[in-house]
Every structure is written in C-alpha cells, then in structure tokens.
C-alpha cells in the first residue's frame, strides 16, 4: 500500500466520521418517521408520475454529461457563435433603410403611433428622428446597409438579414432573458445550455459552452442569461476572460504542483463517489465530472485562450491586441474555440444603449465609435471561418435584445442635447450567417418608418427554433422533463424561418 492509498483511506474514514458526527438522535428519529411516510407515499403514488414515460426521458448521463451526442437529424451547423450587442443598437442606423423617415425628421410623432404604447423613457409627444447614417446597396444581392459598418457591408452575400424581429419586452434584462432562455423571467436554461445538453461537447478537455464579455460590463440580465436553469448545472456557460487568467483561479496556488493537485482532486472525487453510492444523487456524479474537467481545463484553457501565437496577419485582420479585454480579442477567441470543438460561444458586448443622454450615447456619435470597434472583427470572423472551411458548419448569429424607436428620445418630455432613440420591442434586426443559412437574403419588412412589422413577423422563439433546426433539433420535440412536465426552449411558440435556410 502506497503512501497515497493510506492517505486516501484516512480521508474516507474522516469523511465518514464527519457524517456520523453530524448525525444526531434527532436526525435518526426524523428520518425514521419520514422514512415510513415516504414508503407509504411512494406506494401510493408509485403508479403515477413521469417515471414510466420513456418518450420524454431526459438524456442525461451523469457520469459523462458532456459526451458527444447525435442530433435528431443531421444538422448543418456543428457550433454556434452568438454575438449579442447588449443594450440594443439602433436598427435604423445599421440595417433597416427608411428614406421616408428622413423626410419626417423633426416633425412631431402622430398620436396614432403613441396611443396605447408604453416606452421606457419617451414621455408626451416626441419628435421623429431621421436616419443618421447613409445607406447604400451592397453585394450581388443589393442588400441595403449603412456606412456605419463599411467592412461588414462587403459580406452581405453571406448574410441573411431579418429586419422583422419582434420581442415582448422593452427593458434590457427581461428582453435579454427572453432572447437567450425563452422566458422573460428567471429560471429557464439558456440556449447554449440546451445545445450542450443536446449535443455534448466534441472536446472533452474544454467546456461545451463558453461565454465571453466585453465593453466593461456584464449584460443587464446578469449571469442568468447563460445559466443552466433546471438543466444539470454542468451545462451552464463558462465565462472566460480575455485579460489576465482566462478563468478565475485556473492557476495552481503557489507551492502546489500539478501532481499534488491531481492527488487532491482524486481524493475529493473518492469521497464524492462514496457519497454517491450512499445517496445515488446524479448531481454528485456531475460534480465529479466537473472536478475532472476543471483539472483538464487548467492545461487546455490557457492554451486555447492564448492569442499571442496567432500570426501578425491575423491580428491585423481582426484588429486584436493581446492582453486586453476587447471585443476584437473575444471574436478571435470565438474562432479558436469553435476550431477546437466548443459547441456554443456566447459573446456579449456592452454599451449599445444609445439614448442620447450623452455624446457617448448619441446615435450619431457614440454609436459610430462603437460600430468601428466591432465592424472589423465581425467581418474578419466571417472571412476567417470561410477560408478555414468552417463557415458551413458554424452558425454566426448577430443580434440584440430589442430595437430602437424611430422617434427621438425626450426624457422627461424635454428635448435632449444629443440625438438618441428609446427602447423599441416591435421591430428590430438580427442577422445570421453560415451554418446552412442562405446568403444575400433580406427577410421581413417593416413599415416605411420602421415602427412596426408589415410582413415576415419573426418572434424571438422563431430565431431560437431556427438555431436549433440548424443544429439538428426539432425545437418542438427537444424537451427536458422538470417539475413534472416537459419544457422546451421555445416554450409553446416558434417556427423555423425556412425562407432563410440554404
């Protein structure tokens, strides 16, 4: 028997004693009474409940939760990069070309548009605000795009632009939750969690669902937008940083070498294993798997998150500079992660909430600067995925939680110093590229001022259904049993936008 075995044995004994120690007479009496009750209840309810419904059985292998799994049908996309502009940029300055709105600039908004509507900040009668950007047609498809995104407009023939998205929420946090979890309230799993639950990860050394944030803040809805909800916690997004340690506490503490770390993790897992044998709680198995994953990630994550080794031409193309927490760095990382088999990369860039309350939040100043920071990296991502033969199997989604009003914001009913737009849930733009999406498509129309959808109305659920479809899932059949009923990402709605599929 080696030193280590002896040590482990002692540890197990200690754990056992600890449990015994906490087990008082009261526990014993309580458990005996409860046990009897449970036995009776169990026999009473044994015949009902969901244990028999094999069709909706959750496909969760606790011992190996991230093992790759087959999709329902051969999906075109293997992975997803979801680029979320937190705060919601104005569609009227970027994708939705509204020449009529320019003619109405400065006129008072007609009452008919305001009746029965609620706005976050607009009060009284606001004035209309014409588009602040110049629009031109681009590519063979002749897609309209603004000069705020000069690089991205060269890619229109690879993109499907959906100008008719609507949401149910006009405040950031609930709208972000709705976009990513299918519910405006907390507690549902995020899209990335659903996808890793359904498909597992192709790389056992990396998490299946990685989150990268930039812009100085996390999204308003907090970490719940990449939470796992009622799915096993192993499927929640792992937030990585492009500055400093990629994952907090990923380095071994001073004085602890890798062998010792391995030995301690093995010992902890032994104790956990023993607990599992006793209680049979599958969460314990996932905990064991997570410890092992964390150990492997200590090597693999710093490696994949290191962009120093990328050639200068790549840095030039993406506009990256290693070591900062920038959107460009995150985009380059997203490509690297996808290349390494990560299933779902979720990017959030904060600071797109252009209310016009400062120059940095003006649609004709701050928005331009913000666009310049993302235009090049996003374009580089599409080009780079393409030249690496990965665009076909990587679905890139760009979007936000809602859009902006064609009216100029008048906070407290007064004219503001800078030009801004208020939150608008009734019409905004999301685009997709790669992963079996048709290029050069503009889908859906809004009225001539971009206020509401005229044709091709697309709900948030439709976006989610389409993403799942591209990965090989029928969103109506992809469910998880929780609290006695099956749940789906798209709740009771959603239809695949077949017009944008290749």
């Amino acid at each position, binding site marked *: 028997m080696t030193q280590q075995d002896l040590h482990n044995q002692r540890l197990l004994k200690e754990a056992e004693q600890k449990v015994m120690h906490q087990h008082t007479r009261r526990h014993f009496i309580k458990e005996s009474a409860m046990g009897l009750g449970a036995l009776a209840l169990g026999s009473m309810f044994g015949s009902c409940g969901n244990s028999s419904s094999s069709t909706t059985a959750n496909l969760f292998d606790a011992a190996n939760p991230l093992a*790759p799994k087959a999709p*329902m049908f051969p999906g075109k996309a293997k992975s997803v990069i979801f680029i979320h502009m937190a705060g919601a940029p104005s569609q009227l300055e970027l994708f939705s070309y509204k020449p009529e709105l320019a003619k109405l600039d400065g006129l008072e908004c007609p009452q008919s548009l305001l009746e029965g509507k609620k706005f976050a900040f607009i009060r009284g009668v606001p004035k209309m605000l014409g588009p602040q950007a110049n629009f031109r047609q681009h590519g063979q498809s002749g897609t309209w795009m603004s000069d705020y995104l000069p690089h991205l407009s060269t890619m229109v023939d690879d993109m499907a632009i959906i100008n008719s998205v609507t949401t149910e929420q006009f405040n950031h946090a609930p709208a972000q939750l709705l976009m990513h979890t299918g519910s405006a309230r907390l507690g549902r799993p995020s899209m990335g969690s659903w996808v890793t639950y359904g498909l597992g990860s*192709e*790389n056992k050394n990396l998490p299946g669902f990685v989150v990268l944030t930039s812009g100085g803040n996390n999204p308003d809805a907090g970490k719940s937008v990449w939470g796992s909800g009622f799915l096993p916690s192993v499927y929640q997004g792992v937030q990585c940083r492009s500055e400093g340690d990629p994952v907090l506490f990923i380095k071994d503490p001073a004085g602890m070498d890798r062998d010792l770390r391995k030995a301690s993790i093995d010992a902890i897992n032994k104790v956990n294993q023993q607990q599992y044998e006793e209680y049979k709680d599958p969460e314990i198995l996932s905990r064991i798997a997570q410890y092992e994953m964390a150990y492997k990630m200590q090597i693999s994550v710093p490696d994949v998150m290191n962009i120093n080794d990328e050639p200068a031409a790549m840095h030039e193309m993406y506009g990256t500079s290693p070591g900062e927490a920038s959107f460009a760095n995150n985009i380059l990382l997203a490509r690297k992660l996808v290349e390494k088999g990560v299933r779902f990369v979720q990017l959030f860039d904060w600071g797109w909430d252009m209310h016009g309350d400062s120059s940095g939040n003006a649609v004709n*100043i701050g928005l331009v600067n913000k666009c310049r920071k993302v235009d090049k990296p996003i374009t580089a991502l599409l*080009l780079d995925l393409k030249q690496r033969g990965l665009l076909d199997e990587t679905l890139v989604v760009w979007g936000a939680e809602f859009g902006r009003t064609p009216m100029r914001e008048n906070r407290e009913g007064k004219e503001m110093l800078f030009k801004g737009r208020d939150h608008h849930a009734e019409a905004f733009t999301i685009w997709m590229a790669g992963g079996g999406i048709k290029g050069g498509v503009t889908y859906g129309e809004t009225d001539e001022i971009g206020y509401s959808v005229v044709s091709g109305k697309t709900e948030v659920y439709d976006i989610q259904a389409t993403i799942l*479809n591209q990965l090989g899932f*029928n969103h109506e059949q992809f469910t998880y049993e929780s609290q006695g009923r099956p749940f789906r990402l798209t709740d009771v709605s959603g239809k*695949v936008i077949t017009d944008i599929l290749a």
Partner: protein
Amino acid sequence: MIVLFIDFLGYFHPVLVHLPIGILLLAGLFQFMSRSEKYKSLKPAIGISLFWGMLGAIASCITGFILSRSGDYDGDLISTHQRFGITVAIVTIVAYSLNKKNNPAAQWSIALMVLLVIITGHLGGSITHGSDYLTKNFSLKKDEVANKRKPVANMQEALLYHEVVQPILESNCYGCHGPNKQKSKLRLDDPDFIMKGGKNGTIIFAGNVDKSKMIERLLLPLSDEDHMPPKEKPQLSKNDIEVLKWWVENGADFHKQVKDFPQPDRIKPVLLAMQSGEQKSAVSPTSIPLTNVNAGDKNAIEKLKERGVSIFSVAQNSNYLSATFVAVDGITQSDLNLLEQLRDQLIWLKLGDTKINDEQLKTIAKLTALTKLYLERTGITDNGLQHLKALSQLQYLNVIGTNISIKGIGQLKQLKKLDQLYVFQSGITGNDFRKMQSMFPTALIDNGSASMAFLQSDTVVINEPIFVP
C-alpha cells in the same frame, strides 16, 4: 325538388335522435322508480313518455333511413345501427301497448327497450365520431394522433405505397374517405378503392399528374371550394404533396420500394426530410448518403471513445458516424485500425492538429465512405495525399496549414464528387491556385486570400456627429 326536400329531412336525424333517447330512458327511469311505494304516483307518466318516445323513435328511423342513403357513411356500421334503430321502435311500440293494457310483461319490455336504446345510441355515435371515439383515451396508441407521422426509418428500402404514401393518406384523408365515412362515395384506404375513385369518377391516372383529380384538388388554393382537405382540416405539407405527385407520376404503384423509382433532384431532399422527420431539409442531400448502413461495431466505437475520440452518429436514427480527434494527442496505428472496422459507417473525420503522417494516410484511404476529411495543420505531404485517390465519395477536403503542393492535390483530380477544397496556408499559392481551379472546375476552392480594405475611419474615434447630407 321533392327529392331535395326529403334529403333535407335526413339532416335532422342527428338532432332528432336525442329526443327518443332521452324520453325513452326517462320512461325506463319512471318504471324503475314507480316500483317503490314513495313514487307510485309516477306510474301514469310511464305511458305518456312511452308514447312520445315511440313517436320520436319512429321519426328518427325515417330520417335516419333518408340520411343513410346519402352514402357519406360506412356501410357496415350503418346497417347495424339501422337494424337496432328499427328494433328500438318496434320494442317501444310493444312496450307502449303492453303498458296500456297493464300487462305485467310491460316492465320487461321496457328494460329491453332501455338496453337497445343504449346500444343503438352508441352505434350512432361511432358513425359520427369514429368507432374508437369512446375508448381512444384509454388505448395505448393515444400518442399516434393524426398528422404526427413517424419518420421512415430507411427511406430507400421502404415500400413507396405502404410506408410513405399510405401514412400520408391515413393521417389526412381517411377521416372522410375511409372505413367510417365515404364522402362523395370515395374511399382511400385500399388500393382498389383508390383506383376506383368516387362519384365524380377516377381520381388517379397512373403516370399523369395533370389529369389526376386527387393531385389537382390538393394543389387548388385553400380558398377554392374544391380544395382538399377542406380548409378547416389539417393540411398536407409541401413535402407530402410532392411525394404524392411523384408517386402518381411514376405510375401510382402499390408494391415497389422507393429505390425502384427514378429520383429527380427535387424529390431527394423531400425523401431525406421524411426519413429524418425534420421540418426542412437542413442538409443538402449530398452530404449524408441516402442509403442506410448497418450499425458500426460497438466494440470499436467504445474503444475509440476510451481513447478520447469524439465519435457519434450524425443523427439519432442514422448509423453513419462522425469522428473527431480534436482532444487526442497522438494518433496511433491501433486507432486507425479501429477506424477501419467502421469504414462503412464513418463519413466525417476530423484529424486536424494531430500527428497523422503519410504512412497512416494509407489506412485512411480505406475509409471509403468518407465524405468530409479534415487534415488541417498536420505533417502530411504530397506523398501521402496520393493514397486518398481511393476515397471516391469525398466531397470536402481541408488541408490548410500543410505542405501540400499543387502536385499533391492534382493526384485527386479524378475524385468527381470533391467540391470543397480548403488550401489556405498550404504550399498552393498564386499561379498554382489558378492551376488548381482548372483541375477542379466545379469545386469551391478557398486558398485564404481573404483580406479587408484598410479604412482610415477604422481607428478614428469621433467626438462630433458625422455629416449626413
């Protein structure tokens, strides 16, 4: 005119029948209750209810007979219902007269009458709501509701009529043109009936889609009165209609398998979608083979998994496999031997960033089902690439970041299906790239020439609004 009016009377049957049912059951109830001392006073009511119930039963018989001649209903069920209905009327008459004469046998005839009313009512219900109406919620098959068809497991091997066409008809048409109802005297639940047609004549002309009324009705706009199924009923999907058209076009055959028929390009994605049950064919029909294979060797798959290879089916109901070595450090000959055991199943293989060498490519060349092969950033050379000539199904080849030259890639010229080639950061540049394009004239070739224009504005941060004319 008179005939029309009589037909019109027939439509009152479903309303009228409820009167005798209610009244006669009430008569039974009165009879039962009046046996006790407390309710003795109900006795005279028995005769009254029997009388009105009798009139109702006779009226129901007459209207029912008229309705049955319309031919919209299933013959067998109708005739049983009819016989029972007439019996009810007769027994009621008998019960009424016995009761009038205060004959003690009256109570037995009333009991018989009640029993017959229940049976007849049930039979009538079966005709309108379907014979499984009462029990369908108890039966194990309750999940198989209309329009939820199971995907076909193996489309090419499937019998075109029995496994593809019939389920479409069953879930969309049998309701009105099946065993229980035959609207317009048309039945679609049997080949003979289908070919016979309905009261408007033949509905299918084998090989002639344009003449076939069935297809015409399906294709009429929803607003058209003659459109089928009626607009309030669930509609056929585009794929369903496409398949029916294809079936009629090829002779409306009832016996052959799908693979026996010519499959033009427009039908391939439709068949594939029906096989997998997806909403729209997300995969172009060439990227996963249409034919099915047997399951791969479980043992080999398990062993590869133990090695850290990510290997799994490309879809839940498919035996084709995808394998990724992204988390495996070194690739060994034993790994390759295991892959070889799965050569019929393996269609996608990712070996990027591994230490695969030219010698090992010889084994890769035996994996002849491969359609996608990733060899990016590996040490392979032109010498090894020549073995891949054997991969006749290959559509996608990724050799970015390798030393492959134009000579090496030229060896794959004869791979007719190869239509995506990625050669970024390889030995193929400039002139060679143009040569390569002429070698693979129809393929998409990317040598990574992607570049972005330099724009002055990229690095400038503005403080003033930019000018908009």
